């Protein structure tokens, strides 16, 4: 049995609170491999200049050497003072890609070719204009349900000459909720008011019966907005269906006919989605936790979150 994608406990590692500024204490710099190669070439040039006692050769070697040193300051400067304002990530289903949106900013200067690297392989290269909030999007695969908590963010640059690389390691407490991957299958419910296995049909029937309009509330499905009345300038209304009332299903963990916990959760996620799409009122019963029947986006998220976090220690 595969363990859920469990985060290492947040308390176990030191995290950096956002917003933060990249200051001298956290920005490191070292020559790149090209930097070392270039120094080797300069050394060869120096030997040549000494041997032929060529003053112009000396001049070139010293010029290139000085350029290397100066470029080190420019590289460091390109990172120093960048502010990481915030990070957010929309929940995703397992198996999809999580998108972490960093909001970064530079007050003092334009930054060019700054790399943002997470988990060693997922990166973005961005320019940061002065005085505006820039969004940096980092995509990371989310294979398992639970909480995706990338270990650390590396902000790095080798601009302008590529001879030095400046970098900083940030461990912000960034999380992305990963819902279980929906697993298609028959709709099974238990313990609802109907109590039978044909709840799905019941709901289906109910969807068809239009009963009237009610004022739009945030969270109502966009698909059910009455565009006709909106177009007439009457305001935003949501269509109500007669089947909604009184027809609620309870999705029960224990009623799932699978031995595997993850299978059960995946099936439940699938049914939550189906019920939500059909605008049904549904509840969720997990061992140790029950969510009362309701509907809407907020409820959908609450249910999926409960599934995602089931048996996962924070």
């Amino acid at each position, binding site marked *: 049995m595969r363990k859920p994608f469990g985060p290492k406990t947040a308390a176990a590692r030191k995290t950096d609170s956002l917003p933060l500024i990249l200051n001298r204490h956290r920005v490191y710099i070292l020559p790149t491999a090209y930097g070392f190669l270039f120094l080797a070439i300069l050394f060869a040039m120096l030997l*040549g200049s000494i041997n032929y006692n060529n003053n112009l050769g000396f001049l070139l070697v010293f*010029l*290139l050497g000085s350029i290397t040193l100066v470029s080190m300051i420019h590289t460091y400067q390109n990172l120093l003072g960048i502010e990481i304002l915030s990070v957010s990530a929309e929940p995703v289903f397992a198996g999809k890609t999580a998108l972490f949106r960093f909001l970064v900013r530079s007050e003092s200067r334009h930054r060019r070719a700054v790399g943002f690297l997470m988990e060693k392989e997922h990166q973005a290269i961005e320019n940061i204009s002065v005085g505006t909030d820039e969004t940096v999007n980092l995509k990371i695969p989310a294979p398992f349900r639970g909480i995706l908590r990338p270990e650390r963010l590396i902000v790095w640059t080798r601009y*302008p000459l590529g001879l030095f690389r400046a970098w900083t390691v940030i461990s912000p407490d960034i999380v992305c909720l990963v819902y279980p991957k929906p697993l298609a299958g028959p709709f099974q419910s238990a313990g609802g008011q109907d109590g039978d296995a044909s709840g799905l049909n019941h709901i289906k029937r109910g969807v068809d019966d239009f009963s009237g309009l009610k004022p739009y509330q945030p969270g109502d499905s966009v698909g059910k907005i009455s565009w006709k009345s909106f177009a007439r300038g009457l305001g935003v209304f949501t269509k109500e269906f007669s089947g909604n009332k009184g027809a609620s299903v309870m999705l029960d963990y224990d009623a799932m006919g699978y031995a595997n916990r993850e299978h059960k959760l995946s099936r439940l996620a699938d049914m939550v989605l189906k019920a939500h799409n059909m605008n049904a009122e549904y509840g969720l019963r997990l061992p140790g936790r029950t969510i009362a029947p309701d509907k809407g986006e907020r409820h959908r998220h609450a249910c999926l979150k409960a599934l995602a976090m089931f048996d996962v220690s924070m």
Partner: protein
Amino acid sequence: MNEQHKTVFPIIAALVVAIFPHTGRLPLWIMLWCGIMWGYILLSSRFKWPRPGKTFRRVLTIIGIAGLLFTFSRRLDQNAFLGLLAVMAALKPFEMETHRDRMITVFLAYFIVITSLFLSETLLIMIYMLISVCVTTAVLIRINDPGSRFKANFKLSALIMSQAIPLMVLLFFLFPRIEGSFFGLRFSGAAKSGFSEILAPGSVGMLVENDAVAFRVTFEDEIPPASLLYWRGIVFSDFDGRRWHAQRHVQENDTLPEGRDPVSYTVMLEPHHYRWLFVLEMPAKTFPQAVLFSDYTLRTPYPISRKMRYAMTSYTRYRTGPENGRTLAESTRLPENVNPRARQLAADITTGATTVEEKAGRVLDFFRNNEFAYTLSPPRLGRHSVDDFIFASRRGYCEHYASAFAFMMRAIDIPARVVGGYLGGEVNPYADYLIVRQSDAHVWVEIWHPENGWMRTDPTAVVSPERISDGMRASLMPGELPDFFDRKYFRNLSDIFQRVRLGWDVVNTQWSAFFEGYSYDVQRALLEKIGIRSGALDASLKAMLLLVVLAGMIIGAYAWFSLRSPRRKSDAIEKYYARYCEKLATTGFARKPDQGPIDYMQYVSKNRPDLQNKIAQITDLYVRLRYRDQASAADLAKFVEKVRKFDPAPVKRF
């Protein structure tokens, strides 16, 4: 692919700029090779033509190397090395898919830049070097930031260079130099120029069309009259019937000629890759790098491959010391059976003359009175070259006269030898020094006088006195130099050209006197001036230490100015926020290091609901000032005011 496309053109531009100074030096096929490869790459990225695959690239590499082996099979000198670099530079842009390939290609461009510096050290080359470095660095920036604009690349490149130049100057002066050469290797392939060991009819004539500078001279006092400016370089004392040879084994000498009217001057000799030094006749002293030979010429132990400066003193009126018998015997030696008519003539016209002066005068009179002409384009001479010259052509250049005169002197047993060097020079009116060009090359004769020693006799002076007093151009017949300068309407242009050239020569000379002369000795003198003296190693160490300290100061200054606390305007904000945190800490709720301002606000509000309002206001202002654009000066004032007035009473116990 996109990144590659954006960097292909800049990288090729950097390579072209780097290789341009070698244009004339590389074989034609390599130039074509580079042109074709680069042209194809540029066109292929424009028209989406296919790039050669790995196999084809390998084939091209093999063809290129085969071509190099074929061209440079005779000797692998620095031209072969240069050819290899060019062939590689032509092929390298075919593989630029990765960042690594691009970086290495740019490094190659830097490397080509340094090779151009080993070929000549002029001010122009230095200026060009700075331009190439600026271009190449801009391309390097481009590679590391493919989305940027060229203009921005160049601006940054120029900025970095201007910051690097103070460091470069420091390194140039203080980086310890060593005496002599490191491995004892020297560039051997550079073309020799000027006189060779052999003087054949026409060899000086060839030099006359060469405008290159042989050396420059600054005099301590006035420049002596042109008729005394005989720059002695090489003595030809063996005649094989047609050509004069410099003697292989000349003895070193430590007796200098005696004389009057010493003239002191400094010569800046251009590298000619021979060993002779040119000095005014006759040298009155010698100097450490030079060896004095018994024929009163000075030579260096090594071929002169760099510009060389030496201070000299010469006597323009002199008397050489006694000569050993062997040298005198060798100086009358002539091969049998050559030039029989000239021998006869010499004997005939000197019958009755008793002294050396009288005999020489008779022969010179013969040249003067028989319509000999001075010309750059004499007819070809046969086996008996002196006979042909004296009895048939009667047209010749200085070497014809010197050769004929020395031959006739030897024929009547007067020791004589031909001296090669330069005569006169052009005074640069802008800086009062003398420019001696290859076109001032001249040969003359010296004959042995039992009392006075070796006496200079210049037969050319008899035929063409203008050559001595007014220089080579004045002495030639119309039409002997390229037409360009003779046309009337080009006179003015030619004048202007001449003036610009002289002005530029001043700048170049001042620069090379200062820059190229900088070496181990000059560095030692400079270090002593600033108080670093003592043993060689010790001085080097101290110089190194000084260098490190000063360079550290420059770098430190840059770092200080550019890496100061990133945002100065936030200093006040931070200060007051810190004060606010201190005040709150007195209530027992200190801010934990990992708490952001909002976390901290929530933490305190939870525990002290009574302070919630004030804390929220202050935190809100702080966050707005710190992280948002819209913050104004009024906000800052409000923030400061609120923090000042903020007075959290300790927790009340009920």
